[in-house]
């Protein structure tokens, strides 16, 4: 099976390649990138005027299996991923039950083989039941195929447990511990950023200092243990600064940020609309700008969606009681192109790197490259396509997104996984 993608702007962050070129895939691998390629019997896709990127990698997604299929499952979630231009998603373990054993990791790899439209990488729990008390069987989960570990959803309060995790994992290699950084006692009952807006609305706040304390602790622990910590969905400007300084002195710390934390602030919180309720919360304009600066100068390594779908009836209720999170897979590329690159705040090759090559490298995945011999995971983006976000068109089961109703410019139009087209023009292929 051959696929020839002709005449697009090919961006390969691995080699800093950025030229009009053709890409030829055969038997699931990229076999050539260059000018005037042709191949007997190949399916030809005309990519002129479009961006040809390595298949996008989202290292922070909640596919909700097992146990929360009313929110999302491997079919709906990976269709959403394909629609959004992603060829690999890494799914978080805060499910029911929590993915904290090799058996559960294997069962999810099985589900990937049966049901997934794109590659699914499995992130295992760091501690049993994500309780932050005893280490989960990290070595066994690695052997079963887990790529990283996280107790995402909350912060592990015990510094000793975190240090143990870092020390114990050290023997197995550079596997990420991905930490949700919000010190618990400072966020109790908090549902939005603590700031001017929360003061007026009366909603309990989650202050930036809660995130800063947690980030600082984990950076110091990683430095002490010589371990690698990855800061999930960074949102506070001061936290970005803590990571920047740590990187400068050689600490193995990396970080990711979401489109929402780069482009939205707590000023858009409305009491009747729970779509803006996320953890960590939407912050201030200054925090957005600090995150963007961190993304540009390399402090922040990856752009992730934190795709967190919930059932409509769970989300459609009082702001205080609605669960946190919204689906992001189908809007992330377009939001970044429109509100970040489109405003001249970031160049497109850097964005592509942060959404493919960099996260793939962090998870030790072979994808994220448009180099000969690499897996034929490819995303084609039409940077000029205008569209309006409509939750009824989503493949995800989630509905409430603060981007619903937005007019955006730029959209993935072709998603190729292992050389096979899985999405074209927004439609998933069977």
């Amino acid at each position, binding site marked *: 099976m051959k696929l020839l993608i002709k005449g697009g702007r090919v961006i390969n962050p691995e080699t800093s390649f950025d030229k009009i070129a053709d890409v030829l895939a055969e038997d699931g691998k990229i076999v050539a990138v260059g000018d005037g390629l042709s191949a007997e019997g190949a399916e030809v896709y005309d990519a002129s005027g479009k961006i040809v990127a390595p298949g996008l990698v989202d290292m922070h997604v909640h596919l909700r299996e097992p146990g929360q299929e009313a929110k999302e499952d491997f079919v709906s979630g990976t269709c959403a991923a394909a629609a959004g231009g992603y060829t690999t998603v890494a799914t978080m373990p805060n499910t029911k039950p929590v993915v904290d054993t090799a058996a559960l990791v294997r069962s999810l790899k099985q589900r990937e083989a049966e049901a997934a439209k794109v590659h699914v990488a499995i992130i295992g729990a760091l501690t049993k039941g994500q309780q932050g008390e005893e280490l989960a069987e990290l070595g066994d989960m690695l052997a079963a195929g887990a790529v990283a570990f996280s107790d995402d959803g909350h912060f592990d309060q015990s510094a000793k447990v975190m240090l143990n995790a870092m020390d114990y994992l050290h023997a197995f290699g550079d596997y990420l511990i991905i930490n949700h950084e919000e010190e618990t006692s400072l966020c109790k009952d908090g549902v939005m950023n603590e700031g001017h807006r929360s*003061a007026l609305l*009366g909603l309990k706040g989650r202050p930036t200092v809660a995130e800063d304390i947690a980030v600082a602790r984990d950076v110091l622990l990683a430095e002490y243990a010589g371990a690698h910590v990855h800061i999930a969905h960074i949102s506070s400007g001061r936290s970005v600064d803590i990571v920047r300084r740590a990187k400068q002195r050689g600490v193995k710390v990396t970080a990711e940020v979401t489109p929402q934390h780069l482009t939205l602030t707590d000023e858009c919180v409305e*009491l009747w609309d729970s779509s803006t309720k996320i953890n960590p919360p939407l912050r201030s304009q200054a925090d957005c700008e600090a995150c963007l600066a961190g993304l540009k100068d390399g402090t922040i390594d990856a752009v992730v969606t934190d795709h967190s779908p919930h059932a409509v009836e769970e989300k459609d209720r009082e702001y205080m009681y609605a669960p946190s999170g919204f689906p992001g897979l189908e809007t992330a590329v377009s939001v970044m192109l429109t509100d970040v690159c489109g405003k001249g705040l970031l160049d497109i090759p850097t964005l592509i790197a942060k959404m493919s090559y960099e996260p793939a490298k962090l998870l030790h995945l072979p994808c994220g490259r448009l180099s000969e011999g690499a897996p034929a995971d490819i995303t084609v983006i039409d940077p000029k396509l205008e569209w309006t976000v409509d939750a009824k068109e989503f493949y995800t089961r989630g509905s409430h997104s603060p981007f619903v109703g937005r007019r955006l410019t730029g959209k993935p139009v072709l998603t190729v996984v292992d050389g096979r087209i899985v999405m074209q023009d927004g439609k998933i292929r069977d």
Partner: protein
Amino acid sequence: MDKNRISLRGKNVLGLADFSPEEIRTVLETAKEMKNIIHRDIKKVPALRGKSIVTLFYEPSTRTRTSFELAGKYLGADVVNITAGTSSIVKGESLRDTLYTVEAMGVDAIVMRHKADGAAEYASRVVSPVILNAGDGAHAHPSQALLNLFTIEQHKGHLEGLKVAILGDVLHSRVARSDIQGMRKMGMEVHIAGPRTLLPRYLCEEPGIFIHERVEEAIRGADVIEVLRIQLERMQGGLFPTTREYARIFGLNGERLKLAKDDVLVLHPGPMNKGWEISPHVAYGDNSAIQEEVQNGVAIRMALFTLVLTGGRQA
């Protein structure tokens, strides 16, 4: 009735953030007429005959619920009370479904109290009857703020230029948040004071509000002092050491009252913790309008019902 008045017909009363000064003025003027009705021997006018009102209370309340209920009844409306403890709410019915049920019975207005901020606004987007917010979390309590303005104006003759001190637990207070909105719109100078643990940290970014950590600074020269209730039921540990110490350092007593203007008016939304945030001497003293607030509350709620349900054609 003045034909030039703005019509509030069909307007949801969710908070004073979305009331213009002219709309607030209309409510205050209408409340004056309503207060006369309360003083009549036979307190019944047919203004809202044929209208039905449901009060939907998810939190306990004596004065607010009774005040809304009597206001509706004095105007001839049928009023039915639903409280959380005695309804399908205890069976786990969602707010949306409860609202659908109430709407389907054909009511014209729903008066709602809920412990979640924004519950009233959410309701206004789910069902069609007019929603009157009787308190949502720490967000808003518009009728209480309006009756405060009404009480102040009855005593002072005007609102603009008055210095008001709001003392105590602003953090958990929906009354304070609505007061701040309403008082600034009517040209008053708002000073807030209390222990820093009970003040929203970023309220200082809001224009036209003066924040003090010691109550004396706010009280000095004040025309009006509103004392907020210490909401023990909402307190998590450690916001202040003891009620005893609070009373000594932050409570309004006769000594501190002397710092204010001689004719200062003392308000409290109730229920009071006498001896904590306010001394009994001040609560029942000559400057106190705390009992009068309760009566004015009925007048304000009659005004709101009349204006949102009929546009204020009659009374």
